[in-house]
Each structure stands twice: as C-alpha cells, then as structure tokens.
C-alpha cells in the first residue's frame, strides 16, 4: 500500500546459531520505539503472528546448506524490497562452511548414527551466492549498533555508515596499544573488517577475524610478519569466515605450502 503506513520488516533464519537475530532483541532500549516506526511483520523467533509479504525490508541470518533452503531464499528475495544479510553465516557461509574443505559424508558419519536420515548440501554458501543482496553486514556476531544504523539508514533512504577499513583503525581510535607490536601476539586485525570496535586487543588477545576480510586485505604481508607456521595460519583463516574469498585464498595458500 502506498498510504503513509509503517514500513514492514521481516527477519529470516537459515543455518545459524540465532545470535544475529537475537541482536535485534538485544536492542533493549530501542526495540519498542523501533516497533513504533516499523511493523515487524515476520519474525518467528519473537512472534507467533505473521503478516503475509511482500516486505519492505528483510534481514537474513544464516547460510544455505540444504536444497530446501536454496529454494526458500529465492522466495524470500521475491517477497522483499530490500534484502540485508546479517552476520558471517549469511555473508560468508559461517563456521559451517568448514565443510567446504572436507568430506560431508564423513562429517555426517561422525555426528549421526544414521547418516541416511540427514539431507544436506556438501557446501555452506552465503546468501549472495543464490540471490541478489542489497547490503551485507559483517560479523560473528553482528554489532547491534551497526544493525540499528543499517535499519535507520534504510528508513531514511540513505547509505549506511559502515566502514570497510581494518580493525587496526578501531584500535587506534580506542587508544589500544598494538598487541602485535608490543607483545608479539598474533593478530588478524590488519586484514579484518572493522565493526566490532576492536574488542579483542582491548582484552589482551589478538583479533581472530570474526568480522571477515576488510577491503583490499594484504594477508601475505601480515602472514610473513606473524611468525606462525603454515598449519597455524590455515586454522587462523578457517574459522567463522572461512568461506570469505580473501580468507579462503589465504588458507588454501598456506595449505599448499
């Protein structure tokens, strides 16, 4: 309807831990006023009432790991005006993309006594591998402040202010002393997308890359600096964003060495 009604929001889940959609409910101070401005039309985890689409904006959590989900995401795309992926699963395949480097039948036998009951694809892929995505919000988990910015930008017809620079910039702004330079702690900060607020170095540990690759990351240079063995570097890049192109290439390069 073109009447000045509230715009509608839908929240969808694919293979995931629910943590990113929980971030919506974690907006304790803003949730009720958000609901004053937007009609939360489809959000199964929070409401048993659903409104039929189409929806003005869809937030999609999770990766595609089954044939059924590969079909479902196409239906979600068709019923959505703007489609925004939230989190590392939806944006890069998530931790379950570790199967992309392994034998899924073997995986299934390890976990399930009757693997025949399990139907799954051999890969975990991001939403963008299946449908057109309007905006991708990184993070495992996403930062709820960034989520609010993305929703608010959408409501106000502007581009979200979400920077693609590295975690290093956030450390400098926060005034954290570099853990790599000062303590020799291995840190993926130089190649990792900003957004978390550089939490790990502020807690005396190296960044572990949960926001995925920054724009134009130079992984080869960082890796030469790190002093880590190839097998450790493979593990470093193969966590929550193992399927993100730059991290995938880096881990495969170290695996070949």
């Amino acid at each position, binding site marked *: 309807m073109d009447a000045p009604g509230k715009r509608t929001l839908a929240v969808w889940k694919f293979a995931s831990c629910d943590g990113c959609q929980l971030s919506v409910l974690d907006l304790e101070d803003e949730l009720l006023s958000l609901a004053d401005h937007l009609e939360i039309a489809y959000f199964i985890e*929070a409401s048993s009432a659903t409104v039929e689409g189409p929806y003005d904006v869809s937030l999609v959590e999770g990766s595609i790991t089954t044939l059924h989900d590969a079909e479902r995401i196409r239906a979600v795309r068709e019923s959505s005006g703007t489609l925004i992926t939230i989190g590392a699963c939806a944006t890069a395949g998530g*931790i379950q993309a570790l199967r992309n480097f392994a034998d899924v039948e073997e995986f299934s036998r390890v976990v399930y006594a009757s693997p025949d009951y399990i139907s799954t694809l051999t890969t975990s892929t991001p939403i963008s591998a299946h449908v057109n995505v309007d905006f991708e919000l990184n993070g495992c988990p996403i930062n709820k402040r960034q989520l609010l910015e993305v929703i608010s930008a959408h409501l106000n017809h502007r581009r979200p202010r979400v920077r693609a620079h590295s975690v290093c910039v956030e450390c400098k702004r926060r005034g954290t002393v570099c853990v790599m330079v000062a303590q020799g702690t291995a840190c993926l900060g130089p190649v990792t997308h900003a957004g978390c607020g550089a939490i790990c170095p502020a807690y005396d540990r190296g960044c572990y890359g949960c926001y995925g690759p920054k724009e134009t990351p130079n992984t080869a240079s960082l890796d030469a600096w790190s002093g880590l063995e190839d097998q450790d570097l493979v593990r470093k890049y193969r966590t929550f964003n193992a399927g993100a192109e730059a991290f995938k290439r880096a881990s495969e390069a170290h695996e070949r060495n």
Partner: protein
Amino acid sequence: MSETSRTRTIRTDYLARVEGEGAMFVKLDGREVSEVKLRLYEPPRFFEAFLRGRSFAEVPDITARICGICPVAYQISSARAMEDACGVRIDDGPIRDLRRLLYCGEWIESHSLHVYMLHAPDFLGYSSAIEMARDHREIVEQGLQMKKAGNALMTVIGGREVHPINVRVGGFYRVPAPAELRVLVDALERARETAVATVRWTSMLEFPDVEIEPEHVALVDPDGYPIDRGRIVSDHGLDIEPAEFDEHIVEEHVEHSTALHARLRRRGSYLTGPLARYSLASAAMRALARETAREAGLSAPCRNPFQSIVVRAVELVQATDEALALIDAYEQPDAAAVEVEPRRAVGHGATEAPRGMLYHRYEIDEDGTILDARIVPPTSQNQRAIEEDLRAVVQSSLDLSDEELTLRCEQAIRNHDPCISCSTHFLDLTVDRG
C-alpha cells in the same frame, strides 16, 4: 459416536518464539493420542566433526557458535572439559568466581528473554512481547531492562553479549578491575527488584492443571545452586561424575529430527532445566530466592511444566542476587588464567545452561590436537521428555478446539525453552487429527 472414531491432526510447521527451527505433529485416533513428534529440522552444522584436528585452545571460541543465546554455557563447559583432560582444576578462587559471574549474566539475559518475550505472551493472549507492550508497556520495558543488566555483565567480563571473546581454557585473557564491575551494581539491584516482582506476577497467572513426573536430572554442587559444575544427580537415584555420563546416558538418532535423542540407560526419558534444578537444588538457593519462592507459594518439586515461568523468575532472583554478592566479594587476581599444558587424555565438562545441562567430552592428543569431540546439549536431552509432556497435555485437553489445542501444544513446548539451534543436534509440532 463419530467423535470416538475420528482422526484429528494438530500440527504447527514453524514453531514461533523458540530459538531455532522446529515443528510439531500430534495425531489423535478418537480420544487416544496415537503419535507425538517434536521435529527439529534445523539444518545440521557438524560441529563435532570439524572440531577434529583443531587445537584444544580453540574450543571456547568455536563451540560458542553453536548457540547465540547461551554461548557462555558452551564456553565454560568446553573450557572445563579441556582443563579436566589436562589435569587442571579451577574450583575456587577469583577465576572460578568470575566464570560464575559471567554465567549469571547469561542466565539473567536468557531467562529475561524467555519469561518476557517468549513465554509470557502465551499466558496473556498476545502473539509477541511487542504486541503485549501496546497494553503493558511498563512491564515489557522492565523485562527488557532486566535483560539489559544481564547483557551488561556479559559485556564487561566477556567483551560482548553474543559470543564473548574473553573466555579461554585456563581462565580469561584479561580480568576486570573491581571498579569495572562496581558500575554494574545499580542496574543489577534494579534487575533484582524486577526479578522479585516477576516471581509475584508470574505466580498469579492461570496455569492449566497438569502434573507430569519425568525423572529430573541436574547438576548438584555442594557450594551453591548449580551453574558451572557439579555431580549429575536425579530424583530417581542417579548420582555420577560428569566423566561417567556415557555409562548412564545414550544418544539415539531418530528419523524425524536432526537432533539426537538422549535417554537414561534402562530407564528412558529425563528432563533437565529449571524444573529439574529447582527440584533437586532449591535448598541451595540464596535466602532471597527461597523466601520469594515461598511467598509465591512455589513448592519443590514443581511438577506442572506451565509453572516453569515462575521457576525461571525465581532463578532470576537467584542469579541477580548471586551476581551482586560475587561483585561485592571480588578481588582482582594477579594472573588472568592458569597455565594449561596439553597431554594425551580424555576430558569431561558439564554445566547448567539456562535451559538445562550441557555436557562436553573431548579426546586430545599430546600436542593438544582434538581427536574426538562429543557435545550433548540440553534440548536433545529433553526432546523425549517434551514429547511425553505433549502427549499428557493433549490427553488432558481433548475437548479443546483444534485451534485452542494447537496453541496449548505450542505452549507446552515453549514451557521448556527449547533451543533448536543448539540441539541440532529440535521439534516440528503438527497436530494430526486426520
């Protein structure tokens, strides 16, 4: 009479207000429940498989990603299992207290979410807390502020509320200064007042008259209400160390679910979670929680699963009160972690996630490489008990219309706060009356 021969089907394909994807199916032949299935169709993610070959030090970060609602439960269980394998015990002192404090934060966040946003709307006839807020804005706002206090605790100690970054095998990367914790006191005191008020109003809700007697299983810790450790104890005489889990509990794979079903050998289904903890350990609660429960008329054991909302509220009093006591007594340790050297061994860890007992077992090599991993989440342990609950609830509610019965069944499932993301290692409710 046609009523006695009619087949009725009650089904819900997408269960709402639970964490993860599940459905239910109930079939009635006349007045007999012939089939009950809680179907968990969350796609499998294969954690136990890809943990093989990873380093023992990576488990708190990796297993946190099993569940965005209770990551701390996964972090502490896995860290304790690795410490057990390596012969390290962190059973007292400031590091253990900080772990317990972090875990209190998760209980406060998760229980506030369940009581106010997932469960209360069932009793008051709303589809969601957001709809409920149109008539009861103040109540919902109070619940959200209590949830926020739990999240604030997790953020200070853990770095962030979802998937905290500060938990490691052996302790923490950095421990907070006492002043960092003291800023949380005001919000936690308000949360404690809200928790006490929550016990009062939830105890006055109308509960269907149902009594169910599953075997209750919970950790029991001589030092207090069970959260981060304990022996595995039941009200039918089970009393074992976490290391003996496999000798007494088996997991089975059934066709209708991507979650494995656990059962006690030779006995069958059992229930973990708030009702079980309250049955087995209410005497170990703090005085304020016991007093609030007594005033609300909540006896132990509590056998009506619909009253689990009151038990969760009492546990909110426990968790907020204990968090305040831990902050008051906190002294910053010199080291944030103890050194843990890997060795070839098997280790076990069991803790109480907000929705029930969580068990981890790892076999590691001498350099700390994981050879085998086994994770048994609360919902896969509870799945059979929930199905049995559902059967009893349907059998006692046969005169309800299909629509009312479907709602009652969904509510019976939400009573147990199932976490399907975790257990897929959950349930599709279809009521099939033909």
